[in-house]
């Protein structure tokens, strides 16, 4: 369980987060949505203390992370995976090395690393891409590698910062499917920040709407499931035609 208690964060003159409290239950897919600058990314980054709150407490499984320093904070972070809009893979490491580094950091037994990396890659459907470099992958594949990397240490939580915002519709669907799997099959609690309503609607069981650094409202929702997206150009034409007239040239 993740609980934020009256958290505040200011960047110089700008109050990014104003007195936010929220509770994210185990097993949920929790959405945070809002306009640009509403504070949703900052809020997410407060959860693993990538941003340190000025005041307030960040409790993960009952432990206040703001009270931890050095190695204890680093260990706490290992149970919270994170993925980013820009993927943030190490471009000079192969897919295998990108995932293995996360195991090295947590002193995962050397002999079992290879097996664990393979297992994670199989989960995201990229077991044949081990020796490739990120530059050789599509956006969706990169994000799946990032998910595999985040899962390597068997985290309880997965924080997703605009995970599909730089992807095309197909890749978006592909990544959302994997996230759904991560939650259903592995029981990982997921927090997704996104400005895309479709993304939030398809997965989330509870959604907080942010505005001006504050919680506007939190609602329970029924996940609609990930839309199947066709790979052919007709899909795009149909989507275009759906909400208005298309003047076929």
């Amino acid at each position, binding site marked *: 369980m993740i609980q934020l208690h009256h958290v505040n964060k200011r960047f110089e003159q700008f109050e990014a987060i104003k007195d936010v409290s929220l509770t994210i239950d185990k097993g949920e897919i929790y959405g945070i949505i809002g306009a640009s600058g509403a504070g949703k990314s900052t809020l997410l980054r407060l959860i693993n203390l*990538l941003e340190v709150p000025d005041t307030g407490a960040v409790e993960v499984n009952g432990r206040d992370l703001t009270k931890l320093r050095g190695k204890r904070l680093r260990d706490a972070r*290992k149970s919270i995976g*994170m993925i980013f809009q*820009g993927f943030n*893979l190490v471009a*000079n*490491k192969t897919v295998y090395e990108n995932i293995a580094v*996360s195991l090295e*950091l*947590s002193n995962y037994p050397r002999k079992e690393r290879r097996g664990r990396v393979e297992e994670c890659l199989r989960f995201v459907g990229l077991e044949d891409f081990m020796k490739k470099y990120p530059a050789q992958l599509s956006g969706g594949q990169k994000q799946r590698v990032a998910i595999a990397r985040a899962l390597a240490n068997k985290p309880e939580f997965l924080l997703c910062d605009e995970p599909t915002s730089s992807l095309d519709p197909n890749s978006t669907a592909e990544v959302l499917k994997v996230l759904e799997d991560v939650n259903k099959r592995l029981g990982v609690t997921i927090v997704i920040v996104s400005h895309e309503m479709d993304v939030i609607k398809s997965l989330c069981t509870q959604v907080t709407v942010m505005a001006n650094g504050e919680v506007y409202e939190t609602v329970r929702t029924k996940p609609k499931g990930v839309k199947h997206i066709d790979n052919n150009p007709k899909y795009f034409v149909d989507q275009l035609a759906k909400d208005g007239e298309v003047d076929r040239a």
Partner: protein
Amino acid sequence: MPEILVQYEAQIWQAIGETFIMVGVSILAAVLLGLPVGTLLYLCRKGNLLENRVAFSTLNLLVNIIRSFPFLLLVVFLIPFTRLIIGTAIGTAAATVPLAIIAIAHYSRLVEQTLLDVPKGVLEAAVSMGASVRSVIFKFLYVEARSGLVVGLTTSIISFISYSTIMGVVGGGGIGDFAIRFGYQQFKTELMMYMIVIMVIFVQIIQFTGMTVARMIDKR
């Protein structure tokens, strides 16, 4: 081989040896000390992992001061310091002291610039995985910056060769000194030209090797 080269063969080999020692020590200083100093400059900068205004300003000022000296004046200025650590201010060994110092300042700046180009997000991902500062540096920062670090070192080495040519002023010897004393001052223009050719060949080899290695290790 041209007769004049045969005539001076022994001295030429000695001069090449001296240049190798001076440039070699500069490279060692650049890698062993310039790399950490450049990394600290980067890490202590505002918004970075070890943000520290005092440390950053101090290092930054120090590097700037060393780099502002016209090199010849730096050599003279450092004579007391050189005497302190080598025991003499004259000779090839003594010449390595100012060379090492300029090498550290020179390469640390290039290291800092290269590291600034590493996408911040990669380091953020590292921190989110629970990496310590040490792990961030060795498992992420240097891995991502490695081809830039090699290119920077290549550029630096070529500057070191250039710096080494004036070490004749403190009896450091080397190819540059040989070219001046024998080629220029004794009016053996031909000999001077051959020395320049040797330098050009060295620089070409270093530049080619450096760029090839940088390209091979760059997977971005």
